[in-house]
């Protein structure tokens, strides 16, 4: 199979990226400074992430589309304001998660940002569910970059005037040298930032301008440590078809209004789990020492009973220590419960903790 390249491939090469194959794309895992420096630069200044491998699905329509999408997503889309975004999931009838996503109401319908590895399957599922009633475009002609970190608002605003007035989880159309770009104030690092959807032909130019203003390219390696410190899930690891949003501790993302009606795919299971509780649940886990417990590490209680498994674990550069999350039997999910992680045949003490590991600094916008 041919691996695909994003429109920023040449810039990545010039910037001495190390590449990995990810979801069929050649993507930069890190640049010359390395993951720890890139992570810290994002937290303290501003980092640019090429996330063009992710799916940008535009679905066009009005009232009918809203009704149809509400049968699929556990969101109050009717009352979602124009240009506002929500985090959500595409579920199967058992409430297992096909993908997690960000959906934004636009003037022509909805824009849904999908995970790279899931986007083609998501498209198929949605097309079937929507019975081809609405025009759907999984747009390969647009790139997607994120700019994240405390200096990003000023840097991006110097290039595209007006973006600093956006509120968190909202967006709008802007213009970059007469080209239409859709920008939302969002991201996946636990920092204030923006995601920019821009035609492929101009993404290189925009990115170079942002670099000239002081931002830096950051690889997928630091994106992973940043999102894990922020307590955010990675599909295929922390989320999959065998886990529900309630088990994933993401019930905050499900509309209460919609639960009371219970008319979306997977709602039976969601309601049952909300009422009766779940057997396993996603928690934050902080190892006591420096040992790193990675994905698939087994979790034991103090009586040496196997009670769960790590789904993401790494070293958190801002925490300056190991961080992890995983699924654990609900009765052991209380904060400060002592557990043991089996790494290379030995059991190491750790504690269940709240998420995030690193406190967010999302900005509510300058207009408020």
């Amino acid at each position: 199979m041919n691996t695909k390249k994003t429109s920023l491939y040449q810039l990545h090469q010039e910037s001495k990226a190390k590449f990995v194959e990810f979801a069929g794309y050649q993507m930069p895992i890190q640049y010359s400074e390395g993951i720890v420096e890139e992570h810290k630069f994002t937290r303290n200044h501003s980092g640019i992430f090429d996330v063009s491998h992710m799916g940008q699905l535009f679905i066009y329509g009005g009232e009918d589309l809203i009704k149809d999408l509400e049968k699929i997503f556990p969101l109050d889309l009717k009352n979602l304001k124009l240009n506002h975004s929500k985090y959500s999931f595409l579920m199967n009838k058992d409430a297992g998660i096909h993908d997690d996503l960000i959906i934004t109401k636009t003037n022509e319908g909805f824009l849904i940002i999908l995970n790279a590895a899931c986007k083609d399957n998501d498209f198929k599922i949605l097309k079937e569910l929507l019975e081809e009633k609405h025009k759907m475009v999984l747009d390969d002609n647009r790139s997607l970059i994120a700019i994240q970190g405390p200096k990003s608002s000023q840097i991006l605003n110097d290039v595209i005037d007006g973006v600093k007035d956006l509120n968190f989880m909202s967006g709008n159309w802007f213009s970059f040298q007469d080209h239409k770009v859709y920008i939302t104030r969002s991201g996946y690092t636990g920092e204030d930032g923006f995601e920019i959807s821009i035609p492929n032909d101009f993404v290189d130019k925009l990115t170079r301008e942002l670099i000239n203003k002081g931002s830096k390219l950051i690889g997928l390696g630091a994106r992973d440590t940043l999102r894990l410190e922020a307590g955010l899930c990675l599909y295929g690891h922390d989320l999959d078809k065998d886990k529900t949003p309630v088990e994933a501790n993401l019930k905050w993302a499900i509309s209460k209004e919609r639960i009371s009606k219970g008319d979306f795919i997977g709602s039976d299971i969601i309601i049952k789990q909300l009422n009766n509780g779940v057997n396993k649940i996603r928690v934050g886990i902080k190892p006591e020492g420096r040992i790193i417990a990675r994905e698939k590490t087994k979790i034991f209680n103090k009586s040496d009973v196997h009670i769960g498994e790590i789904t993401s674990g790494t070293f958190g550069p801002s925490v300056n220590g190991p961080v992890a999350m995983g699924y654990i039997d609900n009765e052991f999910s209380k904060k400060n419960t002592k557990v043991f992680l089996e790494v290379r045949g030995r059991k190491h003490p750790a504690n269940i903790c709240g998420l995030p590991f690193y406190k967010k600094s999302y900005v509510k916008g300058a207009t408020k």
Partner: protein
Amino acid sequence: MSEVKYSKEHEWIKLEGDIATIGITKHATEMLGDIVFAELPEKGSNVEKDGTAGVVESTKAASDVYTPVSGEVVDTNQAIVDDPSKINQDPEDSAWFFKLKIKDQSEMDTLMNKDDYDKFAKETSA
């Protein structure tokens, strides 16, 4: 007189008398990326040539550290356990991993000299 030799697993070994100091090469640290965790063998334990004698972890993955020769662990470098980033900074000197009292000096002959190792490292990473 001391000689430095290199293994295919990217360890360096410096022999002074019958005491060998062992660490990982600069090339190894460049492949690993930022090292954030190091585990060393226990002092007083015996390690066998090509056996596991420690672990390093980068932000990306864990890798075993092997010992290129057999011997008894007589010292370990706690400084790299306390601050693993030292391994990236000075891998072939102050960030050594452990010292062995070696058993069989002839095991040194199976290892590469600097020129051969540099060539090997270049070929295997290409």
